């Protein structure tokens, strides 16, 4: 495990701290776990389930918007929150409680890693946390809030959970700046190594970035409510709006899909995961007719909405999380294909793209697809096509479902014929061939005919059509699998 700049107490020479730090400083210390747990739970509902001693961890049960929840919190007032075997036991028991009660569990992390003074004993204990987190995966929702450094073992704890929220002071890394500097010579601080920028945009380690500790805890509460109290779909609460107003008129024009998703969901209920990482696909939880749903939507504003390695991986993990907790899926498709390029192939787009095919194909939850503008090629299949077992597939009038765009297709199919035509006539010939090709191979009519699209729906009737499709599906269906951090 590792040390961090903020955890000098981890140095091997430091004596094991037995005595409590003076009472008053701890009471006003913002890192006091009692205070953090009180901030997390509904007022007056906190009940400690571990001794308030020097183990370095504190656990409690309580309510979050009325949802019975288990939470534990690093005690960063002692040795920078370093994890010893007693503290790890607190976490393991908290997990046992959450599993027994079948309720969400939330970890508030602020820890430099394992207690060096305890040696392998602390490593073993940290490993036991990883083990029970994995046993609990897919059974009870697990949310991590990283409020300070989370290094070494404390980094992998959150990483094994379903959703990781990072506060402004949160820093996640396996080896701290000192070790990086001594081994590789790279001069890097904790912020650049494991702060909001690298984990929000580059690594995909963090799902939600928060501007303040209060906001981080607030987002965790929203997630607990969404996953812990999913509600029932109330079709009468679904008002139809013209969703095409969220789109540009030109089919070639890129647009930001966020307003579309926000309008599709109940007002103000959207909670996006991985907002900045792989932004060419949007994954969000929210309410739809008061029921919790997951939305996956291509975002044409970024990379034209193409699927690529990270976006397929991001969507696959989201699908599997929703499936494990019985959250139905709405899949909004406007995808020109997979991103071509050497970088993508070497980056494993085949292997990582396969995760999305696997995730959708195994998903038991109701999952309804809507093709708004286009669905081409392999990406058409990957976005919850009929063939992968979609509950129902809708398309807007004029949507294109095809192997590729008509012009690109006829240029391949009729390469020789087109080459034989005089250059000035080519655009006319191509247009004729493309129109013919669309009639026989593409277009939404053909997709309906062969049964890969069930129904053409007007943008102004889409919300109610999706609601009816979800309501008709098996409400209790969910997958029985863990949520490995893909």
């Amino acid at each position, binding site marked *: 495990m590792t040390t961090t700049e903020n955890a000098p107490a981890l140095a091997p020479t430091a004596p094991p701290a037995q005595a409590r730090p003076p009472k008053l400083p701890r009471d006003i210390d913002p890192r006091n776990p009692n205070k953090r747990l009180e901030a997390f739970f509904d007022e007056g509902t906190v009940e400690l389930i571990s001794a308030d001693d020097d183990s370095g961890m504190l656990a409690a049960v309580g309510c979050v918007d009325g949802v019975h929840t288990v939470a534990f919190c690093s005690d960063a007032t002692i040795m920078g929150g370093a994890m010893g075997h007693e503290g790890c036991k607190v976490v393991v028991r908290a997990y046992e409680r959450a599993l027994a009660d079948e309720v969400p569990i939330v970890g508030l992390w602020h820890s430099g890693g394992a207690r060096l003074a305890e040696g392998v004993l602390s490593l073993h204990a940290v490993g036991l946390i990883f083990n029970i987190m994995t046993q609990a995966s897919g059974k009870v929702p697990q949310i991590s809030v990283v409020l300070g450094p989370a290094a070494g073992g404390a980094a992998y704890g959150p990483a094994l959970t379903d959703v990781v929220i990072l506060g402004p002071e949160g820093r996640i890394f396996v080896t701290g700046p000192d070790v990086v500097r001594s081994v590789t010579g790279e001069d890097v601080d904790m912020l650049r190594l494991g702060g909001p920028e690298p984990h929000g945009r580059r690594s995909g380690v963090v799902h939600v970035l928060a501007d303040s500790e209060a906001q981080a805890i607030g987002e965790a509460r929203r997630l607990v409510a969404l996953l812990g109290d999913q509600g029932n779909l109330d079709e009468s609460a679904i008002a139809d709006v013209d969703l095409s107003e969220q789109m540009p008129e*030109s089919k*070639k*024009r*890129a647009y930001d899909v966020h307003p579309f998703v926000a309008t599709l969901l109940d007002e103000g209920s959207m909670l996006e995961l991985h907002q900045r990482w792989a932004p060419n696909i949007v994954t969000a939880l929210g309410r739809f007719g008061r029921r919790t749903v997951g939305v996956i939507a291509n975002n*044409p*504003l*970024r*990379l*034209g*909405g*193409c699927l690529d390695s990270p976006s397929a991986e991001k969507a696959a993990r989201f699908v599997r999380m929703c499936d494990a907790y019985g959250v139905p899926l709405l899949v909004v498709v406007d995808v*020109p*294909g997979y*991103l*071509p*390029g*050497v*970088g993508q192939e070497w980056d494993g787009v085949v292997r990582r793209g396969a995760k999305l095919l696997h995730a959708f194909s195994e998903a038991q939850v109701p999952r309804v697809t809507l093709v708004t503008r286009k669905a081409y090629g392999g990406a058409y299949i990957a976005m919850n096509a009929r063939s992968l077992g979609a509950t129902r597939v809708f398309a807007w009038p004029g949507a294109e479902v095809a192997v590729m*765009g008509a012009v*690109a297709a006829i240029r391949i199919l009729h390469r020789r014929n087109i080459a034989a035509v005089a250059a000035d006539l080519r655009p006319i010939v191509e247009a004729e061939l493309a129109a013919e090709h669309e009639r026989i191979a593409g277009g939404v009519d053909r997709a309906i005919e062969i049964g890969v699209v069930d129904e053409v729906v007007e943008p102004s009737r889409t919300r109610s059509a999706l609601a009816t499709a979800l309501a008709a599906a098996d409400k209790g269906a969910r997958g029985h699998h863990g949520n490995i951090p893909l």
Partner: protein
Amino acid sequence: MAYEVHAELVANVLHVLVEAGDTVAEGDTLVLLESMKMEIPVPAEVSGTVAEVAVNEGDVVTEGDLIAQITET
């Protein structure tokens, strides 16, 4: 520190919408690319001043090419 904006895919440069010295906010479109039958805007990922625009209209950019540099404010 100058923030570098790179092309994320192979594309034609359709329009260049900013020039050096312009002030941009996060999310503003710097350049419009054309690829995959789509017009794809390249947004500023930070707010600041455009220090350099490295492409011209009509250029073909490939993945990783520098498009612009922004000095963060």
